């Protein structure tokens, strides 16, 4: 550490001297530019900053057409364009928006929220557009909801003795999610199928899943993870809040067993973690399922 500081200090002197010979003001400017790296405190301060990336477009107006005698038409952002683009071929726009794809894998370069493979999958269902609207009403990135259904069921309404529905929720988590969602937006109650039967109603379960995701965000934020990504919440779901935080702060080269020291090899194996599997490999397996949604932040519409 000291070695490169000394080397840089000498280099700074040489550059300063040579520039002063030509033009006195330039040397001063060079010193000022270099100061950020010669003062370790300032360096650390600069490194501690987290690059902020604009995730998707600003809040969009949802246009609607309302005229007497004409059916109400609401255009939900991200849905397939039902009107052909003027090339005469009859193909529609993809409704996916533009921007970064968030697939850089370092958790800092989130893509646009309305642009993910997972969201496209969910919007391919009959209930997808409604789930997107409900997620937005709760302040949730719709891709976070879509990623959950893609991982859990491929967005298929699956029944079973334990977890059920497109989001494969258990009764307790389902009820907690509903309560959280309704505490934020009581108007969603009108869409809810009451009782446990709601788990097999995709719209109802999407509301519960959105509420449950907000709980995950709250837990991670309270553990010092300022802006959790969809990948961060997967750790929370699979291994609990304490291990979820550990996974969110582990170097990708660390093994899963090292990142979750309280968990035995047998339990890791039951959860699909192979011996020696690294955090980076586990993250890659999630990315393989949900694509560019993985690095997107959970919050935001």
């Amino acid at each position, binding site marked *: 550490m000291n070695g490169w500081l000394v080397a840089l200090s000498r280099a700074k002197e040489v550059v300063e001297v040579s520039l002063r010979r030509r033009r006195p003001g330039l040397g001063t400017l060079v010193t000022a530019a270099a100061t*950020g790296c010669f003062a370790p405190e300032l360096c650390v301060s600069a490194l501690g900053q987290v690059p902020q990336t604009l995730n998707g477009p600003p809040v969009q107006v949802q246009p609607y057409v309302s005229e007497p005698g004409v059916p109400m038409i609401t255009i939900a952002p991200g849905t397939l364009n039902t009107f052909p683009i003027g090339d005469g071929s009859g193909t529609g726009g993809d409704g996916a928006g533009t921007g970064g794809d968030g697939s850089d894998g370092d958790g800092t370069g989130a893509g646009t929220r309305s642009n993910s493979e997972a969201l496209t999958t969910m919007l391919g269902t009959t209930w997808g557009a409604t789930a997107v609207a409900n997620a937005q009403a709760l302040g949730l990135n719709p891709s976070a909801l879509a990623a959950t259904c893609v991982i859990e069921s491929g967005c298929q309404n699956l029944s079973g003795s334990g977890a059920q529905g497109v989001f494969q929720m258990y009764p307790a988590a389902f009820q907690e999610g509903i309560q959280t969602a309704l505490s934020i937006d009581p108007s969603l109650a009108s869409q809810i199928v009451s009782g446990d039967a709601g788990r097999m109603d995709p719209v109802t379960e999407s509301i519960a899943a959105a509420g449950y995701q907000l709980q995950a965000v709250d837990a991670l934020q309270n553990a010092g993870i300022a802006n959790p990504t969809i990948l961060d919440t997967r750790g929370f779901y699979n291994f609990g809040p*304490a*291990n979820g935080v550990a996974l*969110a702060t582990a170097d990708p080269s660390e093994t899963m067993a090292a990142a979750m020291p*309280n968990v035995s090899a047998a339990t890791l194996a039951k959860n699909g973690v192979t011996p020696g599997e690294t955090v980076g490999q586990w993250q890659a397996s999630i990315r393989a399922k949900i694509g560019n949604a993985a690095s997107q932040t959970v919050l935001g519409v």
Partner: protein
Amino acid sequence: MRTREAWVGFLIGILIVGSVPGIAAGQAKPLPGYRCMMLNLSEQQSMDPSKRVPVRAAPSMSAPTVGWAGAVVVVREPVTSVNGFVQMLFPDGRQVWIASDMLRPYHSLGDPNAKCMPEILPNGRIGFGSHG
């Protein structure tokens, strides 16, 4: 002319920053003065969705709770207990306090040879790795 000089200074500054190993490459940086510990929880407790281990703003049971601890905790070295609390670093860099009886030395059940060294991750979070 001043604008041109400012640009030259700016560009040289960027070149210097880019020449420092570990900065341009986006690698984790070691965090001297800290060490890893782990929560004193059973396996079942560590995976319990409702289990929360509080951290506080000051070394006192009456101090406000500012959040919850993760399974791996980065604590200041040497580890000293103040009023039954140990100072730790939150992932966002805040100094907070955790009850010392909620901590134990780092030792991975699933990988007994695993090492844990505190790091500053490329995304700015305080974290840990095996290289330090």
